[in-house]
């Protein structure tokens, strides 16, 4: 059987409409010599994954990447089924009945825990929930964050931590020019947050944030950046690591942070305090059953056998009063029903994108993965491109060798019927384009890039009768 002809197109289901899913589709479409049907599914009616629900609203330029995804979606053999949940509306067995190949691109959907006492006190949250909330993700729309607190501790110095700290420091006027969710804009308007702490475990040279991000933190109109000189002084271990690697970007990062340490605060209404060499050891109760402070241990830096600069706790402990704690210490994939999972790394069990049978460790014919659920949560949006290319290369090799699922009903119309039957509210790409236009229109009158729909019901109502039987 030769797949990829007009009579017998290669039929592929992609689960998860984020960057990884779109880059998989794009790489498949590059093979102009092959007829490949791509059906993309997402549990939300809206596409783009973390570009919509993760990338900060004050970073609109990065969201321009969706233009490339729209081109993919405009191809004739591409379909989108939004609002369809894997394992609930469609199972692996269902997909195997209709596709030669299935690709899981569901991302890393949970946060890692700090594993310290008090982590679950009211007022202590995963930073990702706050991010999803201010970005209008329907699942997090009704989250509550006590923004009447004056001091907030954000654990971590990766880009999510930095986003959270920055959003907390922005003025309502700045935020009102973004596509931040309305409910978040309203809540942040009444925010009494005055001091935001970013807490890094290692030193300035090892912080995951990028130089543009650090510069941005130093240019906030409403917040002074505060850095302790002794915490950004280059220690011998980091100095040696920097010299050995010739890593100029990290050296520059340290320089910028050192310049912040020399700054006189301008007396802006808010303070953004960046701390290094501290790890939380406990979240402390305020006596009334919610977060009152965070206990930190001071770290020193040591080099591991491989030269990695690691944090090692000292005896020095301090308490930082804070009424709200956000943790951003990493993410983890969630197992998909019926799909082999590698618990050690929190990813779909795979080898270079081919899903493996957990017993034989051999590839499961026709099942693949890409993006964060394949390699774990690392890299920027663009990192998913080479990652998807690797998966697609495996898919096309396997298809050429005939190592595919042999579906009983490789028929686009049959999928349509099945989806409508299981999920009457499923939306297609045209529906999304209408939602998109409506969101932009709602924003236009208020000088904003868009005003997002933040409830699935709201989206379906806006789309009209077909979706409200």
């Amino acid at each position, binding site marked *: 059987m030769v797949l990829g002809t007009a009579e017998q197109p290669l039929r592929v289901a992609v689960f998860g409409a984020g960057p990884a899913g779109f880059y998989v589709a794009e790489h498949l479409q590059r093979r102009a010599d092959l007829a490949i049907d791509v059906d993309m599914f997402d549990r939300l009616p809206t596409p783009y994954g973390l570009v919509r629900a993760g990338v900060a609203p004050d970073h609109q*330029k*990065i969201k*321009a*990447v969706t233009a*490339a995804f729209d081109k993919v979606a405009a191809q004739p053999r591409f379909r989108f089924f939004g609002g369809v949940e894997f394992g609930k509306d469609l199972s692996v067995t269902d997909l195997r009945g209709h596709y030669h190949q299935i690709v899981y691109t569901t991302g890393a959907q949970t946060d890692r825990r700090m594993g310290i006492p008090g982590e679950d006190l009211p007022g202590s949250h995963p930073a990702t929930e706050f991010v999803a909330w201010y970005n209008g993700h329907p699942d997090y729309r009704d989250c509550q964050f006590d923004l009447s607190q004056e001091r907030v501790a954000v654990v971590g110095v990766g880009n999510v931590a930095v986003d959270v700290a920055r959003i907390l420091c922005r003025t309502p006027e700045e935020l009102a020019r973004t596509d931040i969710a309305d409910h978040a804009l309203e809540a942040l308007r009444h925010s009494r947050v005055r001091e935001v702490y970013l807490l890094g475990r290692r030193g300035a040279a*090892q912080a995951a944030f990028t130089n543009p991000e650090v510069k941005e933190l130093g240019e906030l109109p409403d917040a002074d950046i505060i850095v302790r000189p002794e915490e950004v002084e280059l220690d011998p271990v980091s100095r040696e*690591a920097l010299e*050995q*690697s010739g*890593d100029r970007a990290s050296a520059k990062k340290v320089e910028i942070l050192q310049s912040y340490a020399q700054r006189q605060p301008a007396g802006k209404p808010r303070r953004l305090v960046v701390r290094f060499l501290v790890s939380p050891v406990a979240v402390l109760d305020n006596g009334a059953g919610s977060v009152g402070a965070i206990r930190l241990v001071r770290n020193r830096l040591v080099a*591991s*056998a*491989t*030269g*990695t*600069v*690691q944090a090692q706790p000292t005896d020095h402990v301090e308490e930082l009063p804070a009424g709200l704690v956000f943790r951003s210490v990493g993410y983890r994939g969630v197992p998909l029903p019926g799909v082999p999972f*590698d618990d*050690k*790394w929190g*990813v779909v*069990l*795979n*080898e*270079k*994108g*081919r899903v*493996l049978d957990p017993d034989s*460790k051999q590839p499961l014919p026709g099942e693949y993965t890409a993006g964060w659920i*394949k*390699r*774990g949560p*690392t*890299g*920027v*949006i*663009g*990192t*998913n*491109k*080479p*990652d998807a290319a*690797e998966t697609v290369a495996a898919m096309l090799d396997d298809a050429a060798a005939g190592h595919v699922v042999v579906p009983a009903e490789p028929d686009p119309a049959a999928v349509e019927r099945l989806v409508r039957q299981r999920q009457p509210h499923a939306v297609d790409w045209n529906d999304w384009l209408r939602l998109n236009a409506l969101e932009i229109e709602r924003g236009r009158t208020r000088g904003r890039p868009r005003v997002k729909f933040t409830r699935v019901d709201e989206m379906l109502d806006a789309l009209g009768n077909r979706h409200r039987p």
Partner: protein
Amino acid sequence: MNIASILATKGDKVFTIRGEQTIREALVVLAQHNIGALVVVDGLRPIGILSERDVVRAAVKNEAVFPLLVNQLMTRDLVLGDPGDDLGAVGQTMVQRRIRHLPVVVDGKLVGMISIGDIVKAQRDRYQGEVDTLQIIVMEHGH
């Protein structure tokens, strides 16, 4: 970026051998899987590494390498990695110490192996990704 992301797409496979097995057996495993090195283990604990170079070096001096035991030729001076180790630091160390393979352990137990080729690929993908994302931002800025 840490080396766990490399191990995550290697499908849980690490090729190991015991010290009391023969070089012949070791070569069969190397050839079968088209790989360059085996971790020598005692249970789950790595005690050495046997690379194709170790065998080549020995074979030059002694034509009868096949029946020798792995623990006679293996390199015992092991550099072990941790899944949380920085990609850049690991790459740097491997280049400096001329190590092509790095066993990765958690609590002393072998969980995977990274080759210098893996590091090169991961760094290339990382830079490609960053350039790609930067281009999007810059292009957008031009509008």
